[in-house]
């Protein structure tokens, strides 16, 4: 590429425009970092600062600032993540309503905000006010009738298509990495993989802007997964301002773990759930120091979001519920049934979605991303408009399903038959038979459920930001509410049955269908993502009480068991496998009896290992070796006869060191001897100046013997984050095992395709 050395003009502010000069210690794109080296570099840096802090006051202050910089980064991440989440919530609220109408007094108000100050709202039409008009009223001055309906339908589809088209064009032109959920790639990045530009500033901007467009277009997707990506981009941005984090990839990943926690915290209004989600799902190494800092970042983010107050009631999430009606032991049976449903749906969704994504990856379908988005949006809009439960945004649907029926609820779901002679307040009477509205709602919900199950399979994974927490919760909430209403009506009509007799007397308020919706949502979410503790904590932070922990846990555990019976992977691990990322999962267990010698390279029949000798190769030999092979590093041995191991040299550092030496040092030519020892080898008098490269040599590479069981080797790779490991026998170098070899071996043992592992 271009050498930016000659562009170093004055002015440090302009330096960010220059290309970053690759120095020794940075990593190439799509490679894995060396965790041990990052850790030792950080320890060195810390030791240097501590020793210098005793010299003067200024150094002492610098050491204090260095210690506090971690907390400052967390504060900044929390502030920015909370602000962005507030902006996204407000904008989504407005743009979702834009599809149906517009506020005449001030165009930036959504439907609810527009009617906020109106005096013309009546009890029967709580949502209508003259200030907010549908498009048909505005354009042709009619609000009822077939022509108005068709015009509204047409404009709804038009708005949805324009939002989706705009979103996919922005993604394609400005930041192609902004598509998808982001969580599989962030998991891989946090395990040590480098994807340059994935957490960049343009990705952050485009993901925020297009997320609003995509959620408003009515597609069946959520914003929680992309919010984690947005928060990690903020984390990357702030950590690049401090050299402590910008120069050390290992420390940077600590910051990213905390940023992921802040992302989930603002998505669900659940700080503790966010930290647990980061711990359980996203992070790879999670030291205790990160736990406290993640919690701080999540709290700051939640607090910032609360002060922006996007939903007007100091709530953080649209579907926060606040009731505390009790539940009964006998209801555990339908809860467990909901758990089974969640597990089955999770398995179905994962299998179908992976199959569809694989088809998109390998066939002609993948060549038309923009067309695909437009077609899916058109289908979604056309089918979603007639059914009132799919026409509204999914968050509002979940909110309606979670809520218990009370005086403030005027929805169809609460249309129970009232006894006209009742003296108690109307909507407070328990134990009533369902009215016609409830029956209508039931079959509409059933249709909506089938539609959502099918369309989410095709929506998740398109080239737009898409999350799947909200659609899964919607599917579960619909199923749960239907089961809840069913149980309620069963209890009403058959009070004398043995299962109802003890706890559900006539006239008693026994069944809360909203609780069944919550349990169903938790079950479906757990079935797809296989979250355990973090799911339960997020759900109970959403409901604001500890009463419902037992039903939520029962459903989550059941759904995880049922889903695990069919396949071990959650949706994110499945996408990691689909993309071939080099992710060594901590949850996998390796129980086969192979040895290191079965996995190491070179195998029998392969060319021998490419090694460097400690003082007998010339610069030209090394350059030829580098050009002919594409290995990431070379072991250094004493000589070709006695293959005793000295150390390991990285390819990138060899290239840079040779290039530097040729440019800067005198007398280095192609015939110069390259040596890795302390003292230069004895050379005849007129030979060219030798090149000392001991500083790039890693003198302590990890070695195992050839009879080490692979179980131990996999454990070493996992726990230490190694990239390669050398195999020796009685001190002689036999071969090398890289992370890619380990992953391929594990895939082979599990009867999967070992060629699907693509990256190093």
């Amino acid at each position: 590429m271009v050498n930016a050395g000659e562009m170093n003009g004055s002015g440090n502010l302009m330096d960010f425009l220059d290309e970053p000069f690759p120095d020794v210690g940075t990593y190439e794109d799509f490679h894995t970092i060396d965790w041990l080296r990052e850790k030792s570099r950080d320890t060195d840096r810390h030791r240097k600062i501590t020793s210098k802090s005793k010299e003067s006051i200024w150094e002492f202050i610098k050491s204090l600032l260095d210690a506090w910089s971690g907390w400052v980064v967390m504060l900044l991440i929390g502030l920015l993540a909370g602000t962005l989440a507030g902006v996204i919530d407000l904008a989504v609220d407005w743009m979702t309503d834009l599809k149906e109408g517009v506020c005449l007094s001030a165009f930036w108000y959504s439907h609810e905000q527009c009617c906020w100050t109106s005096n013309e709202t009546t009890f029967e039409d709580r949502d209508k006010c003259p200030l907010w008009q549908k498009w048909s009223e505005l354009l042709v001055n009619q609000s009822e009738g077939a022509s108005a309906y068709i015009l509204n339908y047409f404009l709804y589809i038009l708005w949805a298509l324009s939002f989706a088209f705009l979103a996919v064009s922005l993604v394609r032109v400005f930041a192609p990495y902004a598509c998808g959920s982001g969580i599989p790639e962030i998991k891989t990045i946090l395990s040590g993989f480098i994807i340059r530009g994935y957490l960049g500033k343009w990705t952050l901007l485009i993901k925020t802007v297009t997320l609003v467009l995509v959620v408003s277009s009515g597609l069946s997707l959520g914003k929680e997964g992309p919010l984690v990506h947005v928060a990690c981009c903020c984390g990357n941005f702030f950590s690049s301002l401090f050299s402590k984090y910008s120069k050390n990839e290992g420390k940077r990943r600590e910051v990213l773990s905390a940023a992921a926690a802040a992302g989930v915290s603002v998505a669900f209004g659940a700080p503790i759930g966010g930290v647990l989600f980061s711990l359980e799902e996203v992070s790879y190494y999670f030291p205790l120091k990160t736990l406290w800092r993640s919690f701080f970042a999540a709290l700051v983010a939640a607090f910032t979001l609360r002060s922006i107050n996007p939903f007007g009631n100091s709530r953080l999430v649209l579907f926060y519920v606040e009731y505390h009606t009790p539940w009964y032991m006998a209801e555990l049976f339908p809860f467990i049934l909901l758990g089974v449903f969640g597990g089955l749906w999770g398995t179905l969704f994962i299998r179908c979605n992976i199959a569809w994504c694989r088809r998109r990856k390998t066939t002609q379908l993948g060549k038309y991303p923009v067309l695909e988005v437009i077609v899916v949006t058109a289908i979604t809009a056309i089918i979603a408009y007639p059914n009132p439960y799919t026409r509204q945004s999914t968050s509002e649907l979940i909110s309606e399903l979670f809520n218990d029926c009370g005086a403030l609820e005027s929805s169809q779901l609460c249309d129970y038959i009232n006894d006209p002679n009742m003296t108690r307040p109307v909507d407070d009477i328990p134990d009533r038979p369902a009215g016609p509205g409830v029956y209508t709602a039931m079959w509409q919900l059933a249709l909506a459920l089938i539609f959502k199950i099918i369309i989410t399979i095709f929506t998740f994974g398109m080239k737009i930001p898409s999350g799947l927490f909200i659609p899964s919760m919607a599917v579960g909430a619909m199923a749960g509410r239907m089961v809840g209403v069913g149980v309620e009506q069963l209890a009403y009509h058959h009070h004398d049955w043995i299962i109802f007799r003890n706890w559900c007397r006539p006239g008693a308020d026994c069944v809360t269908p909203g609780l069944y919706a919550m349990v169903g949502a938790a079950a479906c979410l757990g079935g797809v993502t296989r979250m355990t503790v973090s799911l339960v904590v997020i759900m109970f932070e959403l409901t604001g009480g500890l009463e419902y922990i037992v039903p939520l846990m029962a459903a989550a555990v059941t759904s995880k068991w049922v889903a695990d019976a069919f396949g071990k992977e959650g949706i994110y691990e499945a996408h990691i496998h689909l993309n071939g990322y080099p992710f060594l999962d901590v949850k996998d267990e390796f129980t086969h009896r192979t040895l290191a010698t079965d996995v190491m390279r070179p195998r029998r029949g392969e060319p021998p290992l490419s090694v460097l000798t400690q003082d007998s190769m010339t610069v030209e030999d090394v350059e030829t070796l580098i050009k002919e092979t594409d290995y990431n590093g070379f072991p250094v041995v004493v000589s070709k006869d006695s293959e005793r191991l000295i150390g390991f040299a990285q390819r990138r550092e060899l290239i840079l060191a040779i290039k530097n030496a040729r440019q800067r040092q005198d007398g280095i030519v192609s015939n110069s001897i390259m040596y890795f020892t302390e003292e230069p080898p004895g050379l005849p008098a007129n030979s060219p100046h030798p090149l000392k490269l001991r500083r790039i040599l890693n003198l302590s590479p990890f070695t195992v013997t050839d009879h080490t069981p692979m179980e131990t080797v996999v454990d070493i790779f996992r726990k230490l984050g190694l990239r390669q490991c050398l195999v020796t026998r009685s001190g002689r170098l036999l071969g090398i095992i890289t992370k890619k070899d380990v992953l391929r071996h594990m895939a082979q043992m599990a009867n999967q395709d070992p060629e699907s592992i693509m990256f190093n």
Partner: protein
Amino acid sequence: TTVWSGFLRLCFVFGLSFLALTGLLLVQLANAAKNFEDVRCKCICPPYKEHSGYIYNKNITQKDCNCLHVVEPMPVPGPDVEAYCLRCECKYEERSSVTIKITIIIYLSILGLLLLYMVYLTFVEPILKRRLFGHSQLIQSDDDVGDHQPFANAHDVLARSRSRANVLNKVEYAQQRWKLQVQEQRKSVFDRHVVLS
């Protein structure tokens, strides 16, 4: 110059955090100096005997947000007030209309700017470059043949602009480098389906 650059970065960070905290404070102040209409207590009273249901709004403090203070004029005579008020549900709500207005307007302006830039990059810039450099100099690299994507001629512009080192060219140089990066990303994601499929 590392001390200078470190100092500059420190100042930048402090400035940024100061700005963020000021922004937060401003939001709070804006909330404090609220619009009269942004705070209310909303009471929904369902139908009772022969009175139909009604919704009452009043700007009142949270302490006084209950049926007795808000429902005026009371539609039912004295002895029935308690029964009527038992059915009513009162909720205290507040919002910040200023925040909503600023957020939506900022979002729409950012969206508009991005849209304009996208139109410029996709349609206007290739026409301008063709006119400036002439048809003969438009070298298309191998894998851009037949490629109608934006940034298709970033390579040759990069090569040309290496000579001068003033600010404007630095900006253009950075822009071309960014375009190359985006093109690489687009190839990985859309064409070869290597990442993010």
